[in-house]
């Protein structure tokens, strides 16, 4: 019985924390302190649920596990359907791991409206977990869109100078993409007669329709990812968001795009995916090279990391749309690794920002003298981001490139340029901030990491190295699902090629 509702319990546990926080009354200081603790305990509990799920997860199976299903909108057959497979497992873990980290990272830096802040993060956690668990398109959309509300408030209330602009841009960009996806979901419902993701996967629609639907989904996921040229909200959102907001944005929200490609685009629209794959490749290449070049000239640390995120996500889309085992697994791995490393990099920037309240690279320099611990930790993450073997960053990039080489040599070669550029901007950033002469007195006087910061970053380092050295922890669990996904993908393509364009037709009736 316990396992029966594991996913729901994990998804809605944070809301229980929200209810508790709502009832905290009293002095401002007292409310703030208690809200922090309640939020932390709730998210740690949720993380414990996540670990439990990880241990219970049957790594040999490609099927959805911990499945729950009940009626929701009865006349429409829309159901509350949750489940986890190898593809979503690690995104859920990433969400439940990063939330307590975010709450810890905001422990001191958020001073105003702490109660609301913690509520926003817990609500956000519910939506994030729900997005990755949902096996019904309407349920998925509900969670996927719901994320916008807390994130809008987090950027808008606790953000920097241009926070209003950034929060609007974030909200409207993503909403615009998503509403088109909503129409596509409804069209699928009208055609197939179901909103269940599993049913939709087994019933591909006609080729022409696939093209339109693919584009509608692409509009949503490409914005979320973000892919060039719809990435411009990301640097703004990152720069203005508070540290923890950037962490969750880079760590989890961007992954929803990639997850969407894997859950919807490839299995539901195989022919369209094949057709549009070259376009995705080229957009990815542009993202990788162009945004790397932009990152090279940034003077703002957060902006630099934000552009590097766009570049890293380029590898993900490239990997996924190669539709090879290595490419897809590499894409997933790259997302996980980027979720950890970029989150950590934003935390590192946050550490400096908390002390000096500026993100300008020029205002720092020579930090290795007064912050040796920080220098070490930061170096590990910079190298992880560069993709040094031994860190998780290496596995992801390597596998995606391996996938790309099987498909198109030119594309893969161009993407490899991005690896070099990535090393360039990250190492330059590191050199300018950490090494050199200490010209700024206030920067030279900053204290080193305190125990809280050290603890947070150390826990991420352990994961980055662990995944880098033992990638099979992830790959073993991911590969059955990916194999299933790709086998079905290729068989659907063969069927489509075999019968021309006539898999249209009567699926609707069959399902009903």
């Amino acid at each position, binding site marked *: 019985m316990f396992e029966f509702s594991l996913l729901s319990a994990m998804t809605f546990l944070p809301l229980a924390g929200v209810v508790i926080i709502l009832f905290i009354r009293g002095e401002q200081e007292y409310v703030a302190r208690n809200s922090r603790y309640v939020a932390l305990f709730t998210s740690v509990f949720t993380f414990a649920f996540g670990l439990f799920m990880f241990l219970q997860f049957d790594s040999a199976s490609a099927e959805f596990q911990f499945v729950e299903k009940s009626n929701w909108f009865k006349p429409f057959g829309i159901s509350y359907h949750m489940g986890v497979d190898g593809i979503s497992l690690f995104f859920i873990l990433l969400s439940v791991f990063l939330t307590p980290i975010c709450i810890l990272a905001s422990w001191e830096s958020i001073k105003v409206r702490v109660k609301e802040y913690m509520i926003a993060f817990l609500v956000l956690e519910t939506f994030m977990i729900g997005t990755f668990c949902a096996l019904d398109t309407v349920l998925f959309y509900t969670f996927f*869109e719901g994320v916008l509300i807390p994130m809008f408030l987090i950027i808008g209330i606790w953000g920097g100078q241009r926070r209003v602009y950034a929060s*609007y841009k974030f909200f409207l960009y993503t909403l615009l993409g998503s509403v088109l996806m909503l129409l596509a979901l409804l069209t699928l419902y*009208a055609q197939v007669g179901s909103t269940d993701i599993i049913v939709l996967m087994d019933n591909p629609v006609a080729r022409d329709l696939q093209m339109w639907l693919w584009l509608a989904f692409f509009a949503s996921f490409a914005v979320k990812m973000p892919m060039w040229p719809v990435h411009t909200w990301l640097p703004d959102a990152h720069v203005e968001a508070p540290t923890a907001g950037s962490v969750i944005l880079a760590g989890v929200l961007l992954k929803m795009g990639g997850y969407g490609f894997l859950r919807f685009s490839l299995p539901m629209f195989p022919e369209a995916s094949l057709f549009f794959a070259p376009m995705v490749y080229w957009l990815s290449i542009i993202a990788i090279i162009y945004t790397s070049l932009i990152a090279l000239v940034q003077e703002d640390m957060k902006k630099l990391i934000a552009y590097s995120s766009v570049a890293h996500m380029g590898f993900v889309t490239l990997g996924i749309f190669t539709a090879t085992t290595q490419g897809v697994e590499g894409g997933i791995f790259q997302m996980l690794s980027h979720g950890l490393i970029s989150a950590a990099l934003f935390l590192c920037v946050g550490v400096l920002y908390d002390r000096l309240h500026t993100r300008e690279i020029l205002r720092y320099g020579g930090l290795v003298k007064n912050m040796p611990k920080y220098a070490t930790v930061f170096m590990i993450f910079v190298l992880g981001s560069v993709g040094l073997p031994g860190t998780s960053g290496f596995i992801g990039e390597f596998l995606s490139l391996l996938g790309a080489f099987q498909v198109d040599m030119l594309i893969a070669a161009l993407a490899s340029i991005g690896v070099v550029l990535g090393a360039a901007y990250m190492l330059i950033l590191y050199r300018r901030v950490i090494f050199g002469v200490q010209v700024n007195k206030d920067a030279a006087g900053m204290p080193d990491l305190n125990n809280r910061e050290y603890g947070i970053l150390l826990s991420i380092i352990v994961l980055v190295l662990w995944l880098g050295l033992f990638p099979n922890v992830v790959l073993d669990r991911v590969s059955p699902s990916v194999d299933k996904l790709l086998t079905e993908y290729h068989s659907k393509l063969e069927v489509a090629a075999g019968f021309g364009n006539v898999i249209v037709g009567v699926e609707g009736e069959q399902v009903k």
Partner: protein
Amino acid sequence: MIDFNLLPLLPEIFLSLTAMGFLIVGVCRGHESMQVVSWASVLSYAFCGILLLSMSWDTEIVLNDMFKFDRFAGLMKLLILLGLIISVALSVRYLKQEGIARFEYPVLVTLAGIGMMLMVSSNNLLSLYMGLELQSLSLYVLASFNRNSLKSSEAGVKYFVLGSLSSGMLLFGISLIYGFVGSVDFGAIGNTLASLQNVPFGVTFGLVFILAGLAFKISAVPFHMWTPDVYQGAPTSVTALFAIIPKIAAMGLLIRLLFEPFASIADQWGQIIYFLSLASMIVGSFAAIMQENIKRLMAYSSIGNMGYALIGVVAGTQGGVAAVILYLIIYLVMTSGVFTVILSMRRDGSDYEKISDLRGMSQSNPVMAYAMAILMFSMSGIPPMAGFFGKLLIFEAAIAQELYILAVFGVLSSVVAAYYYLRIVKVMFFEEEGDAFDGDLPFARRIVLFVSVMFVLAFAIKPGLIVASTQGAASVLFAGL
């Protein structure tokens, strides 16, 4: 044979009697009785609701086919009564604060309510017109209820002149229909039109006029001009009333008219409604961006919302009508909550209605600000709020009928609309603290606000009952087909 079964009319009769009774009480007791009469009216609406629920909801046509009671009418009447309860409960404190506490107010609201209930039950073009006029005349008076205010008088006159024009058009349309079909009875019109091979030109012409008249009542573009001015000029409690109920009644009437007598010429009215819907959505969302006054903003918002609701009518299916009803239910609840907040925008005894007056409200009046934010997110259709599900089912109905262009414009304009709803959230949450509004909300407003926010938040948990009842109500309109 004289048909004298008045049982289905019981709620209307009851309300008429109470309205007259309260009128006598008011005349005898003077204006101090406003409060008593108001709360007594609220009780009478509630009682009327219970009466309605205890009746048999089977279809019944009485008074020589003038009046029809069915599940659709029953549900719409329940909504109207709910709206009446909310709007009168919200008004009491406001009227006293504004110094316009006169007993005619609840009586006029009741009369308007009776008119609306007759509208959704009409089975004849003449009873339709009678209900509509009873409603409209009461509302004209209400709009100018604050007779010392120039703006309120202007709103009343404007509403009256334009309203009469639209009633004239409606009546002209009715006369054309009568001339070409030979009957004003819904059933007879339906049968005649269904039997015709070609629709006479006069019928189409008459239909256009009728639709123009009704489009005015639901303030669909291009007949929306009065809405912002009347919304702004009328006393805020009356604006709340305007926003909450007449739209629902007029939409109910429109649906009944289109799906019963004119069902067989759906291809004729389909294009008209299509255009009304598209134009309302676009104008509603773009024009609202520039507004500084929150009442005007809500006016454009209601125009846009009617545009979305009309999508379901265009779809022309049972699912579409059910989606419209659900949309109206959710719209009623959300609007009630929003107007509770707008009514409470008072400081030192005077009314504030600029959007910028909401500045920093999340600090000064956090409860109201959070309620408003939740309602705004719901209005812009962000899940998991109820507003999203209303839109979802509307678009589902549209997509099922392959109305892709309408759906695409619908979602795009909802993104534009999100911009101005977010602006209110922005002003409340992202801007520096402003002066606090008077914090002590009257009990009735607390209840309304709490219920509407809870409904918006919790709708997603168990939508089954409401969705099923809208389906049931819609099914009776399609039973004969």
